[in-house]
């Protein structure tokens, strides 16, 4: 095996569950680590993404920052993978698509129960919200989809393992589920 495979990961509108699942690979991660190295991920300190072989994206796209991160990943990764239900179809965060953004914000910051100082935040530091939550394939081309909420550690391992070995990626029946 020549160079190590360089991987970056990001969590957009997700819950970090998919990242937890990645860590759940446990001892097999040690085998993998011999063949992979991490670029920008929430697990490392690298802030700017560099050239990568694989990008793993958790979560859908709900704000302007998500869009920028996703585009940066697409520019830098040869293979971009949607990991988990939220990246694939918006998931739970996309349940807000049943309402307009205005309705959501008003409920959350103005009319909801237990609100102290009703005000919709407008700090330029905050990423601005899109009117709808989108799956990531709405914004950039996605090469592969790993379903699950989260995908099991086993599924992620199989994917990385087969990718490393250059085999066509095949999953056992139990490795594919949408929940």
């Amino acid at each position, binding site marked *: 095996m020549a160079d190590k495979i360089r991987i970056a990961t990001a969590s957009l509108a997700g819950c970090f569950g998919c990242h937890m699942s990645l860590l759940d690979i446990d001892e097999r991660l040690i085998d993998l680590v011999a063949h992979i190295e991490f670029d920008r991920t929430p697990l490392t300190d690298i802030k700017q993404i560099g050239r990568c072989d694989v990008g793993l994206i958790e979560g859908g796209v709900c704000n302007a920052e998500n869009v920028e991160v996703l585009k940066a990943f697409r520019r830098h990764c040869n293979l971009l993978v949607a990991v988990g239900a939220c990246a694939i*179809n918006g998931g739970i965060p996309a349940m807000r698509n*049943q309402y307009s953004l205005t309705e959501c914000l008003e409920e959350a910051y103005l009319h909801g129960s237990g609100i102290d100082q009703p005000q919709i935040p407008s700090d330029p530091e905050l990423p601005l919200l899109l009117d709808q939550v989108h*799956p990531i*394939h*709405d914004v950039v081309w996605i090469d*592969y*989809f790993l379903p699950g909420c989260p995908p099991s550690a086993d599924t992620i391992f199989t994917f990385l393992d087969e990718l490393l070995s250059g085999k066509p990626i095949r999953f056992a029946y*139990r490795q594919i589920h*949408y*929940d």
Partner: protein
Amino acid sequence: MSGSFSIDGVTVPFETGQSIMDAALAAKIYIPHLCHNPEFQPHGSCRLCCVTANGRTVAACTTLATDGLEVANETHEITTRRRLLLKLLFVEGNHVCPACEKSGACQLQAVAYHCGMLAPEFVHFYPKRAVDASHPETIIDFNRCILCELCVRASRDHDGKSVFNISGRGIDAHLTIDSPSGRLGDSRFSASDKAARVCPVGAILPKHRGYEIPIGRRLYDQESISQVGDVASHREQEDG
């Protein structure tokens, strides 16, 4: 009268009047389907069961078997088509499987697993649809309805109540309930109706019974629907 035909090279016997689907079910050959339930009149709307019969694409559930017919079912081309149809169904509604009580025992999911669908991929419609929780025992989540009309058929043809109907047209077609308010709680629906037990997806669900079976032991967790069979038939068995 009877005869035989073939599905993917396997000889299948049939009785006159049987559809390709009937004969396949009897021979335990799985043809993916969503709107079909052998207890009701064939419908032909989901198109999942489309096979080729002597080269022509037909719906297996509404096409009669004929002697010597050569049916192709699980070919690469047909499975690819089925995945596309499934993707269309997924993006048409709002299917948030992680938040759905039916997950693991849902036929839409199970058929999608069987056909190797990893993601819906198309642009999502995110339609704005309601949930009707007005009935004391049953909830309807229209977000998940795939318009298979099994509840329509069951309520009309079995329960004799015609509680369910389809309204609108095209992409605006939707399920409706016959009651003065349009809500289930005000209708003649009862949780003991056949219509309460036929929904292949998580659109018509019993209340107070969510997530009873642990993940890993649900109907389709371990084995493909091609081995396990339809969720409705299991429900019938459970309910005796």
